[in-house]
């Protein structure tokens, strides 16, 4: 696995300057983005003229929360809950399905050759277009949301599990063979730990995909509590730009949280021993 890491900094460095130096470039970009945002908002909405919060095309950052009344906040909260739950449970299922498929394919070349082309087929299909079909078949339920999310997210985990399981060296296998290890023992104590760095690399991609699946798949759900995807189309149709931006920001934050959670888990389980 090739990994791009930021340059290493001394571990016990408590000086602020190196950290500040590291944070400065992304913060500068953030500053530029906000400045651009203000510029765009100003040019489109003529000096932020509309004060009632409804007619702005793009609200400037300081007016994002103007149109947020209690009812809107509670709609956004319940949509957040729906999408967060879908993404989280969907990702867990994607991990389960991905690892199981990867392990199964690594055990049997014929299983691999039977499954692999179809996994590629699912992978190259924009799964969003399958959403209406899935909703037709299983109804506009939580199950349908999960299926969409898992279909979008499982592939990187499955392929990386397969790759990681196959990358175990012959000598390590021989050690376990000479010790008379069972297939199960070999899987638990050799292959899965050896594959875990690769699995985590896949998981990092899948975590982002799960959030995309949960939010974008939601566009097709016309019944039940809306998730962030459908809510954003409501706000769009009502030209309520402020709540629309807030909803988008929350979706981005969920994605960020997933990414950070996976990174933290990797730092806990893999980083101490793994040197790529």
């Amino acid at each position, binding site marked *: 696995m090739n990994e791009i890491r930021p340059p290493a900094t001394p571990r016990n460095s408590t000086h602020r300057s190196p950290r500040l130096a590291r944070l400065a470039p992304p913060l500068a970009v953030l500053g530029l983005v906000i400045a651009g945002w203000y510029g765009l908002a100003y040019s489109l909405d003529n000096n932020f003229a509309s004060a009632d919060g409804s007619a702005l095309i793009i609200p400037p950052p300081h007016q994002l929360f103007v149109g947020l009344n209690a009812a809107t906040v509670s709609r956004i909260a319940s949509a957040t809950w729906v999408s967060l739950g879908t993404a989280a449970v969907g990702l867990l299922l994607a991990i389960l399905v991905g690892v199981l498929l990867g392990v199964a394919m690594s055990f049997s070349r014929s299983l691999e050759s039977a499954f692999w082309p179809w996994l590629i087929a699912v992978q190259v299909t924009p799964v969003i277009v399958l959403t209406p079909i899935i909703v037709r078949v299983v109804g506009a339920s939580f199950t349908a949301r999960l299926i969409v999310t898992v279909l979008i997210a499982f592939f990187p985990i499955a392929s990386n599990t397969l790759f990681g399981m196959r990358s175990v060296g012959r000598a*390590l296998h*021989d*050690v376990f063979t*000479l010790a008379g290890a069972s297939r199960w023992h070999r899987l638990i104590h*050799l292959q899965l*730990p050896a594959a875990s760095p690769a699995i985590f690399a896949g998981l990092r991609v899948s975590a982002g995909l799960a959030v995309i699946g949960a939010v974008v798949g939601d566009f097709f759900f016309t019944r039940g509590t809306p998730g962030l995807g459908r809510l954003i189309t409501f706000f769009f149709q009502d030209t309520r730009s402020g709540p629309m931006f807030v909803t988008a920001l929350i979706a981005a934050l969920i994605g960020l949280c997933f990414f950070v959670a996976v990174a933290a888990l990797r730092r806990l389980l893999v980083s*101490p*021993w*793994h*040197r790529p």
Partner: protein
Amino acid sequence: MAVDTRIAAQLRDVHHRFGEAGVLQDVALTVRSGEIVAIVGPSGCGKTTLLRIVAGLLRPSGGEVARPDSGVGFVFQEPALLAWRRVDSNARLLARGEDAIVNHLLTVSGLLEHRHKWPHELSGGMKMRLSLVRSLAARPDLLLLDEPFGALDQITRHRLHDEFGALHESEGFSALLVTHSIDEAVYLADRVLVMSSAPGRIVGEFAVPFPRPRSDDLRYSSEFAALVGNIARSLYRYAGDA
């Protein structure tokens, strides 16, 4: 196949083919109990294949193989450690519940103070020591070694030779060592077998008369150089086009 208690391993008429290519032909060898036998040969002559056959990792195309019922220890070219287990846990991977032995082996090989480290924190020599400790912790009657010191620098290699000799004195295992270094073979073994390539056959056998424990001074003696020279001449005669 029943094994004479004075014999650790025995091969008769072993031959092996990969597809059309004959890799091993009419290989016969005996490792007596407590003896260290070294096999030298040009690279690609089938030394590793032979070792895998002795270990039971590979079934030969023909011939008879006798090995200890208790199983064999195998030290590979690379240390083959579990990167996700600390030194201590790697050392105990194959041990059969005898804590004292593992601790003793870790102490003798200077690994005890490093026992909480990860493998990636060890030097190449330390990794190889750990690999050796892991194999010996299972108390094998026969230890098979596939060029275990080949990747180390000379100082570390010579140090490990002496440590290996000391472990052999204290643990009393039998060993079959494959190496491409004649020097190493003579320094460590009681007998040196010379193998030819394509197909691999045992073409020479040399007894090593030097008493144990051996020390570095032996390497610079004329008797040592003479024996190494004799083996080298025998090896080059059969080395083929390598």
